[in-house]
């Protein structure tokens, strides 16, 4: 049985069922009565209601047995220029050359596991284990929008200028991660970084 906790009077938080795709979770939970929004984080799901939550323990438990939808999976290609200020330090820490870091990062296929931190910010999983580094000991006060960064086993792209504690290895070109239509990347999307010529 999945343990749930109240997140205020109009939301609940419970453990993310392992092995279920975030897309399938989101689609199912949105069918619950009174649901206005859902946030799926690495370990938890939060469901927000228009009033006091009206769900049963059974509805939460059944999420663990959801079959993945067979719908097509979207792949988004992000044009990448690898010229970030932390490339040398990342190469040092990983025991690779700068060129190897770039090749390893651009060769991997990523998946959006979580959205959060900032509008349009996608936590991407699938990073080569050699690039799994801790966060910077001193976060930067400003990381430019479009920066490609990695930390804690994730990689991602900053949608806006913001403070940040990840290692910046490059930037995307010609795409905006969040605009008036919402987020470019969505839960469950596959993502590739394509090196700019």
């Amino acid at each position, binding site marked *: 049985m999945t343990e*749930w*906790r*109240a*997140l*205020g*009077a*109009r*939301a*609940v*938080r419970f453990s993310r069922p392992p092995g279920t795709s975030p897309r399938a979770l*989101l689609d199912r939970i949105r069918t619950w009565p009174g649901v206005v*929004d*859902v*946030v*799926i*984080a*690495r*370990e*938890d*799901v*939060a469901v*927000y209601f228009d009033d*006091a*939550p009206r*769900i*049963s*323990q059974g509805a*939460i438990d059944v999420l663990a047995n959801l079959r993945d939808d067979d719908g097509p999976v979207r792949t988004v290609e992000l044009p990448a220029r690898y010229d970030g200020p932390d490339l040398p330090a990342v190469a040092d820490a990983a025991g690779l050359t700068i060129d190897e870091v770039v090749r390893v990062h651009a060769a991997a296929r990523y998946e959006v596991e*979580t*959205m*959060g*931190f*900032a*509008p*349009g*910010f996608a936590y991407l999983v699938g990073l080569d284990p050699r690039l799994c580094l801790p966060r910077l000991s001193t976060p930067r006060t400003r990381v430019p929008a479009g920066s490609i960064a990695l930390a*804690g086993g994730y990689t991602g792209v900053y*949608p*806006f200028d913001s403070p940040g504690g990840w290692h910046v290895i490059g930037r995307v070109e010609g795409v905006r991660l*969040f*605009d*008036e*239509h*919402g*987020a470019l990347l*969505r*839960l469950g999307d596959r993502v590739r970084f394509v090196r700019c010529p």
Partner: protein
Amino acid sequence: MHEGLAPGGALVPELLAAANRRVQNPDDAAAIEVMGTVTMRADGAMRVATDAIEPRDLRVGDEITVASERHRAAYLAVRGGIDAPVVLGSRSTQLSAGIGRLLRSGDRLSMGEVPIVSRPVEAFEPVDVVRVIPGPDHTAFATHALVVLTSSPYVVLPSSDRVGMRLEGPALPGVTRRDVTRPMVCGAIEVPPDGRPIVLGPEHPTTGGYPVIAVVAHDDRGRCFARAPGQVVRFACLPLAAPVR
């Protein structure tokens, strides 16, 4: 919020509604949230009001000055609403998402055409005590942390904004550092390792890495955020209901 975008909206919805009701707008019509002082000049005939100023008919060239003196924010409403574009279902500015921006000297705004609604203006006083519900992580703190939170006065710090209201007061004991990022909610009281609580506002990050000791009751959020820097807030604990049956 599933795309990382917080709900946004007015910091103090009750004051927004008061300003709107004075000009027969629906409660949630777009208006101007003022933190500080602003002077607006009419370039046509219009009826305006604020949460504190009775309706006033302006003619071309007339000015009205609005200041957030009584509360953290004041609201200037114009009959018909402000004709701001609807982005992702809302007309509200959200700086963290690059939607809209702060007004600058010389900006011109257009009036909208929201329907006429007549409802009485309700009195608004920030109550002495803000009610909270124990948060999902309250067990991550020392057992008396909730008692500390609900028995001590906290002072609103000047660094507070629409993202979060930062409080100065007794540190909440027994916070364990945590790197897992979890879903958040407006009104969540997040506690960083220094033990100083932050009440998340309408532009909060949708996920956060600090434990949530309590969540401000939905109906008390506006009354909490209405406090200006330097003012005191006290919390009282509501019993934890059982939302899941």
